[in-house]
């Protein structure tokens, strides 16, 4: 019994080490809203980022933002500013900060925080309307954030 417990602890520690290149949502260091380091420790892939941005079940950024370079994403919203030329307005660290937790840059903004685990008021299990069980994973993974940032960096005027 005791041995099993110990083994469990060792495994947990090992998992911690394996993921150490990744920054956990609670450990992200924001400096004036910006985040200097890659959250996953790896570079982003702009093509994957484009998918995250346009897919309803992932980032669904186009629900609120228009992107002219992405005509295949139908019905782009206009709640937030158009993202055309956004790489000219923000550097990579600024964009990483906005996509991870826009409230660190824009106080009280309507934009959801994509790399955060709470606290939330009445957190739900995705779109089921049921209560979430346990702590929710962030809306996007560290690598998905990096992919999105890499795509946004291509949006130069």
């Amino acid at each position: 019994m005791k041995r099993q417990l110990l083994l469990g602890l060792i495994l947990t520690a090992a998992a911690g080490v394996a993921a150490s290149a990744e920054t956990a949502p609670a450990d992200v260091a924001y400096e004036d809203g910006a985040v200097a380091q890659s959250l996953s420790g790896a570079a982003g892939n702009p093509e994957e980022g484009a998918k995250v941005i346009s897919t309803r079940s992932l980032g669904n950024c186009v629900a609120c933002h228009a992107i002219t370079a992405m005509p295949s994403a139908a019905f782009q919203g206009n709640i937030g500013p158009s993202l055309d030329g956004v790489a000219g307005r923000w550097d990579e660290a600024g964009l990483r900060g906005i996509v991870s937790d826009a409230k660190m840059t824009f106080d009280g903004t309507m934009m959801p925080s994509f790399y955060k685990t709470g606290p939330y008021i009445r957190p739900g299990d995705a779109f089921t309307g049921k209560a979430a069980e346990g702590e929710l994973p962030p809306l996007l993974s560290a690598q998905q954030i990096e992919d999105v940032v890499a795509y946004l960096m291509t949006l130069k005027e």
Partner: protein
Amino acid sequence: MKFRALASTCAIVAFAGVAANADPADDTLVINGEIPIVTHTDAAPPYIEGLTEQYSGWHFREADTRAMEQDDFDNPGMLGVEAAAANWNEVDGTAGKACASCHEAPESMAGVRTQMPKYSEAKGTMMTLEMYINECRTERMGAEAWGWDDAAMVNMTALISSVSRGLPMNVAVDGPAAPYWEQGKEMYYTRYGQLELSCANCHEDNYGNYIRADHLSQGQINGFPVYRLKDAKLSSIHNRFKGCVRDTRAETFKPGSPEFIALEVYVASRGNGLSVESPSIRN
């Protein structure tokens, strides 16, 4: 070079097109050529700080959807009203009574919807139209209560609302209603769920804007129950609240819950002055 200039002009035109459509439609609603409906006012009630004018959700729907509401023969929500009208005369329950036994014609209900939800002194609680209907069924007819979203219930609320069409919404916000109104207001500005969105984020700050394909309205309830083309049936106020809270990735509340009753009091008051419009048509 020439091609690029042309392409960017096209882009500008296309964009301007979207922006123009984003405004609430400049249009007026008269039902059956005889019931003028106030769908827009230049001033919200003084206790609604966040709104300078009021719009019915009707203004945010496409022209063909708006047109369906101009004539009862084109309004599929009227089928529910007709079903309820038949029900109105049908005896149900141990007391051997129908609605008509006590209330004569449905037209006797004119004005009732404008004040809902309304505090019941007898019950000592805030009551919605659904609750008044069930009170009659269980206490005066000896019939079974209907579920909040049963077709019979939603149809009956549509019938009772329809005879108030054109009359201004006028729910009380003071006296015994005050604590419910305060609770509802607090909920309206609470950012629920993993997306951390409040009713006000979508329906106060962004009405007229698009969230993906959806043209955001003020989330008024003067048109409820609404016939939703997407569901091909009438839908209750609380059913719509449930969906909107769910869409914030939150644990939603139940239709008929104390929370949604309070929220209904507050949201109804945001529409005080707009005409009762139900059954209306929405996507």
